[in-house]
């Protein structure tokens, strides 16, 4: 049975090279388009995977760090020293700026969650005239209770009339517990001789706060408050204590005694923030790379499609020209221009389908080569792409073949046969 389909199939088999050229033109265009889409998709998948891994690693490290910090703090606690805001820490000889004694009470009444013990103190270098030497006079009241008076005190107050001597003092002056000493014409009984602690603590003489205020002529004044054994559940709390204290006690500054712990927290926190910033930088870099690839693809896809269409159009023009005699005789036999056009458009459709298949396969192979691993996932992530390629290829082929098919349909068989016969 002779049909247009048979005519088409026979012509394709007869002019295999021409058909292969049409298929290649379509395949190249489809490979450009599908390859670009698949490469971008695989790039996205890789980016998502890389960033997700990094974010997970960062989150894991941060969680581990928080856990370690919590454990450290549960074991260690840490101490804060609350001083007047203008207290010059870098010049110990300078006259200290003092706070009102009731600041300790205010802090205790505020019941801060992270501070367990509040110890007001007055401290100043003092010339001990009876012993002819400088000491650090430290007046303390003992603890100002935060929770209740039943709270186990962190540090007992110095009893009235008593004194506690630092290591360098009692050792240097050969004093022992129970000895009576005179300081600025006041008599104290040595209640305790402290073991060696190092630094300036060994030079201290502890007396009741009231006595120290009188001796230093600072009534109702304190140098600062020692907030002892602060426990934090989270490293971020540690970093926020300063602002919490500042809200309760304005005009103060907070100094951490266990600065190593804080430094570690700060370093780790900074590292975590830096890791997050690095992830964001990497995300931005990959986004920039994607934009660059997208703009490249935006150029390549239309160029590929246009190139394929031009080649296809030229090949179809050539095919029409080569088949002039055939067109002429078929029209002379009564085939209409519409059916002649259908023959050429059908051939374009067939080459589009075969080309789309070949082009998509080439795109898959390319992506598998250039983006191993993610290529297959990208293909799975774009299930409609093969259909879109086939549809796009058919439209492209029909558009490219339309003009030559029209030319064929518009041929005058008499002119063709006269020219062919000449």
């Amino acid at each position, binding site marked *: 049975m002779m*049909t247009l389909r048979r*005519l088409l199939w*026979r012509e394709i088999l*007869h*002019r295999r090279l021409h058909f292969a050229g049409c298929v290649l033109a379509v395949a190249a265009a489809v490979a450009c388009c599908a390859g670009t889409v698949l490469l971008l998709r695989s790039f996205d998948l890789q980016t998502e995977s890389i960033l997700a891994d990094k974010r997970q690693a960062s989150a894991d490290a941060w969680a581990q760090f928080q856990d370690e910090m919590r454990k450290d703090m549960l074991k260690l606690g840490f101490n804060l020293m609350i001083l007047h805001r203008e207290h010059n820490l870098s010049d110990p000889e300078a006259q200290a700026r003092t706070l009102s004694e009731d600041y300790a009470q205010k802090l205790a009444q505020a019941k801060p969650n992270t501070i367990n013990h509040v110890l007001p103190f007055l401290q100043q270098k003092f010339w001990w005239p009876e012993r002819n030497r400088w000491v650090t006079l430290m007046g303390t009241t003992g603890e100002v209770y935060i929770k209740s008076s039943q709270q186990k005190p962190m540090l007992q107050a110095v009893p009235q009339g008593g004194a506690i001597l630092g290591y360098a003092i009692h050792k240097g002056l050969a004093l022992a517990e129970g000895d009576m000493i005179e300081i600025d014409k006041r008599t104290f009984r040595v209640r305790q001789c402290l073991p060696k602690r190092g630094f300036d603590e060994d030079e201290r003489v502890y007396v009741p706060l009231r006595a120290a205020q009188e001796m230093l002529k600072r009534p109702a004044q304190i140098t600062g408050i020692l907030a002892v054994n602060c426990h934090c559940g989270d490293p971020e709390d540690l970093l926020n204590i300063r602002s919490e204290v500042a809200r309760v006690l304005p005009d103060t500054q907070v100094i951490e005694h266990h600065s190593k712990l804080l430094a570690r927290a700060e370093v780790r926190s900074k590292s975590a923030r830096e890791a997050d910033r690095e992830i964001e930088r990497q995300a931005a870099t990959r986004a920039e790379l994607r934009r660059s690839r997208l703009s490249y693809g935006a150029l390549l896809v239309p160029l590929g499609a246009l190139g394929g269409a031009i080649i296809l159009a030229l090949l179809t023009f050539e095919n029409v020209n080569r088949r002039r005699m055939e067109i002429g*005789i078929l029209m*002379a*036999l*009564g085939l209409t221009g519409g059916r002649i056009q259908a023959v050429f458009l059908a051939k374009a459709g067939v080459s589009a389908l075969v080309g789309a298949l070949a082009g998509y396969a080439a795109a898959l192979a390319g992506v598998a080569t250039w983006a191993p691993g993610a290529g297959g996932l990208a293909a799975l992530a774009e299930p409609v792409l093969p259909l879109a390629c086939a549809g796009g290829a058919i439209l492209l082929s029909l558009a490219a073949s339309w003009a030559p098919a029209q030319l064929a349909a518009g041929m005058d068989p008499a002119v063709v046969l006269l020219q062919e*016969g000449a």
Partner: protein
Amino acid sequence: MVVTGSDLVRTYGQGDRTVRALDRVSLAADAGEFVVVRGPSGCGKTTLLLTLGGLLAPQGGHVELAGQDPYALSPQRRAELRATQVGFVFQQFYLVPYLSVRDNVLCAALAAGNASHAQRRADELIEQMGLTSRRDHRPGELSTGEKQRTALARAMLNRPPLLLADEPTGNLDEASAQAVMDALRQYAASGAAVVLVTHDPRWDRQAGRTVRMEYGRVVE
């Protein structure tokens, strides 16, 4: 009349280079009639054939084919008229190079659409033309005589009432030419009108009527 051409005028070219291929030519062919139009090359024979066959519109005059003016019809209707009413045979055969003998013959059925009868008819014609052993061969594998017999079978497939043959024996040896002429005569005898244009006077005696043309005019 199967076909009638009256006062047909057709010119080619412009100005001084105008060639009057048909100058008020009239020709009619009735059913069963075998008309030979003879004349030298360039006298307008082929133009007359194409005009009578509904392929080339005359610039003057009138054509009536199967009771209709083909040039008053739309191109599609005119194509349908050709498919059912006219068969063409040319000197250059015009066979489709990638189709077998049988498929080339069946090409005529593509337009006429009588597919079921066409295959049987094609096989009969192939046998009648002595091409049975060549039915699956392509034109490139045939002799010139076989090619022309294939073209003749194609022209006869739809049993058109009018068969127009343009120098069908021009490229053939004596035996092949005679075979083609015999087939044409038989076809005319079967009730169709056959118009043969040729420059060869040998076929005058085989025609029912001979018309001579010169310079675009019927002279005898």
